[in-house]
């Protein structure tokens, strides 16, 4: 599960922010996870519990999914990403590197592969709150 590596990335980043902001303790972190990558939120949460320590010992991590939407650059059609329409190998490839979607997914309206991820491509840290 490379979810572990993503959880580590969150820990590294929040730890740095805690230093920079001179937090004694980080109380809450809001993380958004784009559905394109089909990250298993339960695994991320579990990994975070295992990895958190020091100033992050008591941090509450709120992990929320963001629906993945794609937009065709040719015809401007917008659609939802649906994992179930893909075969397993392709879904796995997109799980690792979402951009390879450009090899496998086409605009349902015009067939072009020149689309952008409007939202829900990747994971990001929305906010970090702590006690000084």
């Amino acid at each position, binding site marked *: *599960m490379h979810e572990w590596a993503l959880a580590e990335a969150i820990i590294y*980043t929040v730890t740095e922010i805690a230093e920079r902001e001179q937090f004694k303790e980080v109380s809450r972190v809001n993380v958004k996870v784009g559905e394109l990558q089909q990250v298993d939120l339960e695994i991320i949460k579990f990994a975070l519990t295992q990895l958190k320590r020091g100033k992050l010992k008591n941090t509450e991590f709120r992990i929320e999914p963001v629906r993945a939407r794609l937009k065709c650059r040719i015809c401007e059609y917008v659609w939802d990403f649906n994992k179930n329409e893909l075969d397993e190998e392709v879904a796995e490839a997109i799980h690792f590197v979402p951009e390879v979607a450009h090899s496998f997914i086409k605009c349902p309206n015009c067939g072009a592969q*020149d689309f952008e991820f409007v939202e829900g491509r990747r994971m990001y840290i929305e906010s970090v709150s702590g006690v000084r």
Partner: protein
Amino acid sequence: MLDPRIKAIEHRLSQVKNIIAVSSGKGGVGKSVVSSILALILSKKGYKVGLMDLDFTSPSTHLILGIKGLFPEEKEGIIPPTFEDIKFMSIVYFSKDKALSLRGQDFSDSFIEILAITKWNKLDYLILDMPPGINDATLDVIRYMRKVKFIIVTTPSILSFSTVKKLIDTLNTLKIEIIGVIENMKSDQTYSIGEELGEVKAKFLGEIPFDPELEKCFGNTKMLLTTKFSRELEKIVNEIRM
């Protein structure tokens, strides 16, 4: 909207001693052949070597080395599969050799993604096969791999050398180390870039002749290492003590 992957890259590369980008600006000068065979040579010398193909829209190193049927293991991240002792990463694991057209922003995002999750562990050398152009790939390698050093490949053509001069300029502006310039596909008729290099601030590392036997050896690393190409590249490697 903080991207947690950026900070992870630092950690993932912390045990990598040297990162070497084989670049040019120009396409078709031999970057992929040089990267592939450089990785073989360094690995044969006993170094721990990683090879990463950054030419996402036309990956070549797996074809040169004959790498097939590998897929990274997923274990607290992804572990690059090993091919003849070289840790090898390429977008072909994921794009399955299908056409992949990527805008620059998409290149950046996949580059960051792969770096953030790949566990190279200890490496003496991580060799990067760069795509042509002076674009997102060049800029991102510089942005996210601050210790990168460049080997620049050119052919003895004004078209190639004029681009190489620009790349050298760009790298100098950014204070990025240039190991030097290799002149590839030399033939008798052509004039020498080595002499012209005086005017730009980069070391001339040596030349590799046009080798009509090279392509026949693609896919067979034993044969690749016996080519004139490899022998000349090895001489260069021995001299520069990277």
